[in-house]
């Protein structure tokens, strides 16, 4: 019985998506238990280069003009034939705009059970999945003989799915892909302009505690040293001190940075709504009872303006030496 773990590689506009590396890392854990190989499935057209950084045992590369851009129909067509023929132990797909478009169809077409939204797998082949916005976790064994699973990020670092050594790449011929009912037309690029804070990894967020427009310079200085971006809670934007594109919260944007430094922000519910996906929240506020401290990982009860100057000095030292 085939004990390999297949990973459907996701890529867009010539770039391999992070989730692909996460899945390869996950596949490696699973493959240890099953004794099989980690096999990347790369579908595309003139896209072989993208397989190079995958830390898989091998990559099956399927080239066809109809696969030049992702479409659900073409991918389902090709993958269903492969999975049906080769019956691997598991197939991992991203719970993304690419993977989620095809996983369910494969489940029905091939009669294979599907486990959605997996975060990680254990050494003994169990999955841990996350639902209800992260409030509920589930555990179970991967169904046999072939399991389909979609993954979300968070359980593995993309670096663990990458390798300097390219994997063995096998071109695989495809039969004609006909009767395609979905056709890619073109991309519409996002508007150029101010920063998109929802994509930023380091955010220095300021609230009423900044007190004057001039003080924002200090926040900008710190942001520069940390290679981050300045954003704000509503009152600052209302004053016209920062554009609305920088507003975080219910009426602004949801952010998911690695670091969210909330300075002079009390933590009203409308603001909290926008930051719950942050990895680490650090809160600075003169009010020790501010609700922001309920969700922050670290906090300090000090005036943000006093702290900013000192933080900038020390950060400069740490960088420049």
């Amino acid at each position, binding site marked *: 019985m085939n004990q390999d773990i297949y990973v459907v590689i996701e890529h867009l506009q010539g770039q391999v998506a992070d989730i692909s590396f996460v899945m390869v890392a996950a596949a490696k854990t699973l493959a240890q238990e099953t004794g099989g190989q980690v096999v990347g499935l790369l579908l595309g057209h003139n896209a072989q280069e993208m397989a190079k950084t995958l830390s898989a045992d091998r990559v099956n590369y399927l080239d066809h003009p109809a696969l030049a851009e992702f479409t659900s129909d073409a991918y389902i067509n090709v993958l269903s034939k492969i999975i049906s023929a080769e019956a691997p132990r598991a197939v991992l797909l991203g719970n993304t705009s690419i993977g*989620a478009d095809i996983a369910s169809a494969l*489940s029905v077409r091939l*009669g294979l059970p*599907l486990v959605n939204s997996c975060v990680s797998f254990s050494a003994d082949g169990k999955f841990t999945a996350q639902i209800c*916005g992260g*409030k509920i976790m589930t555990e179970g064994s991967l169904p046999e003989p072939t399991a389909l699973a979609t993954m979300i990020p968070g359980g593995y670092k993309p670096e663990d799915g990458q390798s300097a050594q390219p994997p063995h790449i096998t071109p695989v011929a495809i039969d004609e892909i006909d009767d395609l009912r979905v*056709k*890619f037309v073109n991309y519409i690029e996002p508007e150029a302009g101010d920063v998109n804070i929802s994509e930023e990894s380091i955010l220095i967020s300021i609230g009423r505690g900044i007190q004057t427009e001039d003080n924002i310079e200090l926040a900008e200085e710190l942001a520069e040293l940390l290679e981050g971006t300045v954003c704000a809670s509503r009152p600052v934007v209302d004053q016209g001190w920062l554009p609305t594109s920088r507003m975080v919260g219910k009426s602004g944007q949801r952010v998911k940075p690695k670091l969210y430094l909330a300075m002079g922000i009390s933590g009203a519910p409308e603001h909290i709504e926008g930051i719950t996906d942050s990895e680490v929240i650090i809160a600075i506020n003169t009010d020790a009872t501010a609700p922001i401290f*309920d969700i922050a990982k670290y906090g300090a009860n000090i005036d943000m303006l006093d702290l900013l100057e000192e933080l900038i000095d*020390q950060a400069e030292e740490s960088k420049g030496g």
Partner: protein
Amino acid sequence: MKIVVPIKLVPDLVEELTINDSGTALDMTWLRLIINEFDDHAIEQAILLKEKSGGDVIVLAPDGEGVDDMLFTATAKGADQVIKLIGNFEDGVNSHALARAFSDVIKDLQPDIVLTGVQAHDDQDGSVGPLLAEFLGMPYIGYISGVDLENGKALTKKEYPGGLIGEMEIILPAVLGIQAAEQPPRYVAISKVRQASKTSAIDEREVTDLNQSGGPIIDRMFQPEAGEKATMIDGDEEEIAAKLIEIFEELGVL
């Protein structure tokens, strides 16, 4: 143009969720249900399509607490027909079972296009939309934030990360998984919903067999450990700044 919108109710996360005695599923007794937010967008998109290009909008939902109100709200927004699926839904059904149940009813309706929410937060075995598409033998595109209809085809805008949009054409009949309607779901005055409940009807269809195969078997369902309050850093600005620099370095930010 027949636009069919299957929707479902999901656990409301405002309330505390509890796990049942066997430890493998949510305790349904105290669960408050609300319409899946993405399904609400699907209804809105359907009404917008009807306003743009004409047609009939048919909304379907499985029986559950509050479903009548939800369906009358759809009627008040402009749905032409609302259908409630009657079956053994109280203990919760997975997406595969719901998709099968929907496909039996929707087949007979012979829709031109099916709109449904791209996902729901309680989807343990995939989402209803793409499963339904396969049961109906229709093509599917998900993460849709714009739809235009033209001569047997739909031109859609599919959302990718970072604000990138992929324009895709799909041949009808088809199923679309809606991420966001072209405008936020409209408000309908409660007096209008009440009026709808007095002047219009909810059709019913029986669902006899809820086949749940296709989902995972859960050994254990649990809640992650509750978060704690912030670890407070003491000292004057020098000491606090120093500690913060340490944390930044640990995080790989400095």
